[in-house]
């Protein structure tokens, strides 16, 4: 028993020399940091303009069997979003018109469904989730004629004035 105590004592003394000795009390610095308020912007980027009108009769991509003609994108850009959030974009549009003749078309969200294109009728929607933190979502939008649109084109007067307004509305879910 006595030997054990002696060995224990020697071990304790040895260990006290191995470890570094703290000198005085620690000094502490408390620092505050900040992450700025988040921003969120929903914008469109128009590729097709009045100077680059689509040839509704001869452009193969704009025909019902075509891939569609890219007319632009919508973008959701955010910074410092506090939490993941669900959003809905609603598409609203009428036919191409010069004021007297209407030409039906359909809107396509390119690659929306895991790379597959999805047709959006008017009042159709896209649902998506934005992560917390920074957000940068881009959705390409294309258009092509419907079968009725092709029929209308066949008998429509020749003019560059066929136009339509596509309204996109972003809502939180």
């Amino acid at each position, binding site marked *: 028993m006595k030997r054990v105590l002696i060995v224990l004592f020697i071990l304790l003394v040895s260990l006290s020399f191995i470890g570094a000795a703290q000198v*005085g009390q620690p000094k502490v*610095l*408390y*620092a505050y940091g900040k992450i700025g308020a*988040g921003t969120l912007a929903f914008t469109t980027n128009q590729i097709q303009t009045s100077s680059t009108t689509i040839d509704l009769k001869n452009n193969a991509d704009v025909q019902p069997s075509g891939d569609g003609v890219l007319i632009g994108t919508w973008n959701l850009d955010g910074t410092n*979003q506090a939490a993941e959030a669900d959003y809905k974009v609603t598409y609203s549009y009428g036919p191409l018109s010069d004021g007297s003749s209407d030409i039906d078309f359909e809107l396509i969200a390119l690659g929306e469904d895991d790379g597959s294109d999805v047709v959006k009728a008017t009042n159709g929607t896209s649902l998506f989730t934005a992560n917390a933190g920074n957000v940068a979502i881009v959705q390409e939008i294309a258009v092509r004629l419907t079968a009725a649109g092709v029929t209308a084109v066949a008998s429509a007067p020749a003019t560059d004035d066929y136009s339509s307004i596509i309204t996109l509305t972003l809502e939180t879910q």
Partner: protein
Amino acid sequence: MIKKRVLLLVFLLFSLTFLFGGVNLSTLELVGSILPKSLVDISQIVGGSPQDAIPLDSGDILFSESGNGVKVGTWAVSSNSNAVLSLYISYGPFEDDSILVPYTVYNGSNWVDSEAKFIDLIPNELGVYSAEDNNGPIYIKRVDNNSYPPSNNYKTTISFTLESP
């Protein structure tokens, strides 16, 4: 009887002391000591309050920026200890409501992990440590490009400890 003899002897000795004045020597010994004393001084430059919080999502603190990050304070150590001294650092990530924003610390020469030696102190010619010889900056810099929720209340604690190996 013995008591009387002892008293007589003391009297004789006492008398002899005066008879031969200046022959005896007596000394006083003075012993002085200086206790070791060390002072670690930490001065904060920014981030001392939520109102003065350090921007974590812009400026030099960003991982993507070149440079040493943001200077949050300075350190200085003075000590009359004759032991070998080093300054150690301990820190955790900025935290707010379980959101953690990690960062690292720069001492002006090297990047220093938490629970590591921040710097070795330099004694002067007298073998003690002066604040003039032992001081420097404290920089912090983020270690990722991740985004985090907005808040002015991310908080971190940086602790400095003087140690002798």
